[in-house]
């Protein structure tokens, strides 16, 4: 296929660790195949070639933390036919959204001798707080298989087949013994979005919620389980406020926990 006939893919970065973009480069078996199916028009981590839009599919990593970011995401939306966010930063503000509960000036003073040199917003917000998003791919980091599915689905102009159930389903599929039932280990699996393949319980630890909330959560029933397994109020708040801090369900549950 000639370059001009292929759909144009762009990959963009906001405040983040680069891990979700790297997931694309970690698709070693599929990478050259994907590069043949699409024209990678903008992907600065991987290529110096930089073609102007419009783009058929934009993958956006990272959260919005500066005024320039606010302007940049508007532009990216305007030149993108489809816009998909990849990862916890882009879908739920990322770990840097912990500033949303603090005075950002205190944070600046803690890290920088001259906080006045630093330009930043008081909040870290998901992409959907600023522009319409076609699809949000969860995870810190995203799962390689789900990323390939999303790219393939948009190339075929169909809806991505990414399940919205909880990590518990994946433990059952994997045949992992429930760490909460068997060992009394606190585990966020019941309220966490599937996608990772339930890795943590398979490695003997409780899920720590890096894929954010599943589509149906029941915190009033779930939090007493965490308490039964030894977590106090601060432990519960900390585990909900880590990588998906600005996800509305985790945010609301953590606030309720603090209010008592």
């Amino acid at each position, binding site marked *: 296929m000639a370059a001009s006939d292929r759909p144009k893919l762009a990959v963009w970065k906001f405040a983040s660790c680069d891990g979700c973009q790297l997931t694309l480069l970690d698709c070693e078996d599929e990478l050259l195949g994907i590069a043949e199916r699409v024209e990678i028009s903008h992907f600065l981590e991987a290529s110096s070639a930089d073609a102007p839009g419009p783009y058929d599919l934009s993958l956006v990593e990272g959260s919005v933390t500066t005024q320039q970011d606010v302007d940049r995401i508007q532009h990216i939306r305007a030149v993108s036919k489809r816009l998909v966010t990849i990862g916890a930063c882009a879908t739920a503000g990322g770990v840097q959204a912990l500033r949303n509960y603090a005075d950002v000036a205190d944070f600046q003073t803690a890290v920088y001798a001259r906080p006045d040199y630093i330009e930043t917003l008081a909040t870290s917000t998901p992409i959907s707080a600023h522009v319409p998003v076609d699809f949000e791919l969860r995870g810190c980091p995203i799962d390689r298989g789900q990323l390939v599915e999303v790219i393939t689905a948009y190339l075929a102009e169909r809806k991505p087949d990414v399940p919205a159930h909880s990590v518990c389903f994946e433990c059952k599929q994997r045949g992992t013994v429930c760490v909460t039932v068997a060992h009394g280990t606190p585990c966020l699996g019941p309220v966490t979005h599937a996608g990772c393949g339930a890795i943590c319980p398979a490695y003997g*630890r409780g899920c720590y919620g890096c894929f954010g909330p599943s589509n149906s959560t029941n915190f009033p029933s779930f939090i007493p389980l965490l308490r039964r397994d030894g977590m106090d109020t601060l432990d519960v708040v900390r585990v909900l406020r880590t990588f998906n801090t600005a996800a509305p369900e985790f945010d609301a549950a953590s606030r309720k926990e603090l209010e008592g």
Partner: protein
Amino acid sequence: MTHRGSRVLHIGSLARVEGEGALYLRMDGAEVAEARLAIYEPPRFFEAFLRGRSYTEPPDITSRVCGICPVAYQLSACRAIEDACGVVVEGQLAALRRLLYCGEWIESQTLHIHLLHAPDFLGCDSFIDMARTRRADVERGLRLKQAGNAILELLGGRAIHPVNVRLGGFHRIPTTNELRPLAERLRRARDDAAETVRWVAGFEFPDAGCDNDLFALSEPGTYAIESGTPTVMAAPHTAGLPPESDRALPTRAFGVHDFGVHVTESQVPHSTALHSLLDDRRHLTGSLARYAISGRWLSPIALQAAHDAGLGDPRQGTVCRNPFRSIIVRAVEVLYAADEALRIIDAYEPPPRPYADVPSRAGTGHGATEAPRGLLYHRYTLDSEGTVTDAGLVPPTAQNLGAVEEDLRRIVQERLGDGDPTDAELTTLCERAIRNHDPCISCSAHFLDLTVDRT
């Protein structure tokens, strides 16, 4: 950007690095008056929000500083917190940590060599472009990268932000049988890595040197990765030698507890990354520094490959100070990591418990390990409940910024001596110089805007 009373050109963006940066060059006629590498990745405030977290959390949280070297963050955090708690992890658990780190070295260094850096030497925009004419080389790189990821996935649960690392060791340790298929894959990887050293050794390298102190961990008897003592090798000018001298020079070492005494950070207006000095001088961490300080401890197969690739013999006091040749040193390190991973797997005997207990206590701890891009230092202060009250992270990129700026200044100055370059030529030259040092700017952003200010 505007600069009063001068011509300002805004001429491009830096790709194939990790993070966002901008380069400002001010030229006074044929003299480079100033070279500033600005990191404008938005700040994420890790050191601030680590305060108030439990002492068990920094290994998971700080891995999110960098998706390309999460293990480095996890293990520097573990070492620092274990140090605060008076625990030293030894034996097979320490060996498994080193195995995990070998996985990250293979994956991350291979990414840099094949996907980010090699296109510079072959006149390509990207590995995709490179794959059109050199598909076998790209496929070998992807296969090698996948072998590194296989270690991370088995031992860590996943390649990016592994879940299996905890204070004192691991949540779950592998059985001998689980490691066996990994060994099969690593034997192939070792051949691929040896081939990669030969491949990159055939590239054309400009003459260049770096006149900075070199800084890496050292651990007599082994090539330091996951532990060691901070060690400095003097810069050539201290011995009256040219920057490109390949002679090893005297070293000095200090305890990791004194890291903050020797390495001082300062903030500059043009960057969200802090700049570091080592005893008031510019210094360079990373592959060139490690090879200079620990090269003699490489395994025989890696030493032979280094010798055949023209790097000389570090046992005879030869070092490499040409930043362009760092791609060869990196390839030798990948070969070493594959070989070392096989050695660890061969010697593996599952320890009785997956982790040592790390009871919390009040105090301050320090930890440093060799991230693929250089020495990464963490410091934590805990209260008696095990809550973090203070945290400090010093990534390699922040330490290298001064040396990279000096490198850029020199390289542009030399180019000006050969005539008046266009801005496009300068951009290409500077991008190459920056990629030689593999700046992992995600501790910053993805974009180098080059501004040339001519007066």
